[in-house]
């Protein structure tokens, strides 16, 4: 019987929406789906995890070392429960990217990253070259490690399940690892960038961080998340976790509004699966217009205040 282990991603308070999409991808591989949850506080997460209908068992490793994520700690736990499983899945978030290849290396498994489609149990599609091409790859390995691009999968049912929670002791290992110093996390009342229905993004055309705030009124009216191009982040207009693109986040909202963004392939890599794309740019030749459903050739400093007032 095919058994699948999904890494539960969370912030010790609530489960990440990414895990719901990864579980959905797991359902395409088989129906014996278990989770592994390494956490400093399982009681915060238990109720939420129990809503996942397709999950059979949850391997719990609870300890204060999981207050912050150190890849080595999580991987030691993954190894400890790995014996029974054929597939190991996580999302292609920065957590999944940090943890899964380390695990795959120790298991001598070649990982398949950023899966966007499960063709069958050994065949998967993934973007390559900043999304300029889509590769169909086939694995000859009997056990596989996959990271899942969550925007390509729906969320699993959370109508209630009957998962059994199994507590484990921490594995004793001599793994060399870094120590946690501090976090500077962005706090925001807006929807989370990768799961928002609407994303409004600004680029270098915004000119400075004061002007970048022109996006806020619009985002508030639309209940949108705010994103940015690399140029806008590099120039300090927006924090790093706003970056959309090949090296930033992948988003696929119902509506993506690109303001003062030229549309470099590395930016498109992270947003061109959005349902409707709007581009506001003063250069009518800007490549962003090639992917935009609605293009407005205009000076953003005139268009944005008008747009805000008319929403």
């Amino acid at each position: 019987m095919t058994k699948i282990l999904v890494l539960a991603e969370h912030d010790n308070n609530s489960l990440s929406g990414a895990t719901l999409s990864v579980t959905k991808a797991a359902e395409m591989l088989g129906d014996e789906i278990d989770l592994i949850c390494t956490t400093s506080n399982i009681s915060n997460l238990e109720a939420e995890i129990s809503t996942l209908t397709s999950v059979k068992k949850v391997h719990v490793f609870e300890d204060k070392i999981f207050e912050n994520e150190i890849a080595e700690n999580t991987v030691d736990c993954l190894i400890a429960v790995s014996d029974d499983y054929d597939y190991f899945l996580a999302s292609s978030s920065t957590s999944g990217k940090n943890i899964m290849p380390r695990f795959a290396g120790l298991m001598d498994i070649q990982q398949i990253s950023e899966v966007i489609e499960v063709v069958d149990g050994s065949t998967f599609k993934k973007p390559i070259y900043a999304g300029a091409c889509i590769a169909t790859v086939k694995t000859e390995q009997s056990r596989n490690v996959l990271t899942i691009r969550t925007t390509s999968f729906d969320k699993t049912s959370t109508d209630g399940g009957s998962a059994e929670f199994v507590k484990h002791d921490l594995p004793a290992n001599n793994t060399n690892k870094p120590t946690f110093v501090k976090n500077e996390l962005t706090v925001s009342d807006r929807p989370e960038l990768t799961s928002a229905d609407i994303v409004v993004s600004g680029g270098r055309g915004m000119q400075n961080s004061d002007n970048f705030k022109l996006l806020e009124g619009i985002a508030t009216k639309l209940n949108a998340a705010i994103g940015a191009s690399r140029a806008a982040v590099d120039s300090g207009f927006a924090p790093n976790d706003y970056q959309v693109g090949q090296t930033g986040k992948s988003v696929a909202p119902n509506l993506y509004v690109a303001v003062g963004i030229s549309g470099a392939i590395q930016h498109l890599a992270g947003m061109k699966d959005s349902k409707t794309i709007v581009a506001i740019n003063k250069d009518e030749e800007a490549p962003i217009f090639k992917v935009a459903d609605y293009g407005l050739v205009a000076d953003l400093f005139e268009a944005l205040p008008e747009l805000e007032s008319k929403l």
Partner: protein
Amino acid sequence: MKILIPIKRVNDYNVKVRPNQANTDVDLSNVKMAVNPFCEIALEEAIRLKEGGNATEIIAVSVGDEKNQEQLRTALALGADRAILVKTDKALQPLDVSKVLVKVYEKESPNLVIMGKVGIDGDHNQTGQMFSALTNLPQITFASKVELNGNDVEVTREIDGGLETLSSSLPAVITTDLRLNEPRYASLPNIMKAKRKPLEELTVEELGVEVKPTVTTLKVESPPEREEGVKVENVDVLVEKLKNEAKVI
């Protein structure tokens, strides 16, 4: 202190790569090749550590065919002291590359390994983490700031929620994010000098690594094209279309 910098040969990032006619692979026949941008950033960081008196030797290493010499010469021109090419004509996966790098690590015993977080070609984002696992060296990925204090390193990482700082003793493995630094360009005199810097050649077989193609590519296609949209005359039309045509607001 010795720093090891793995260097990957990839397409120039400005080039849009396309599938070949038969849709069996990408077509790189007329594509300009370069050092992977993230590897350039790794190398730049090492050069700055050396310029700041914190490192004594920078070794660049590539795994692949003869053509990788070009990228290693670029690395030497930028500031690496010597280079190693581990040759193979076989197609490599991240797991293969990390195993070869382990052998080079054992041979050279560097105090620090800095590598790009991802190759812009395969978009795997795996080799650094696998290498760290196989060497049992502390793993610090996606670095946007690196500070060396004696035998310790403090690194700021870019994560989905913002920034995180980790610290580690050396030796350690760091993978680079885009904002760590802005790499320099090689000067003409340095390009000339690089021709005389040592470039050692080994083979994957000599290092005793077996390359196993466990994941093969069946097909490479262009992604579905988006239908070309329309230009709207003004904000009123835009709002009207979003409401009544796209029905997204």
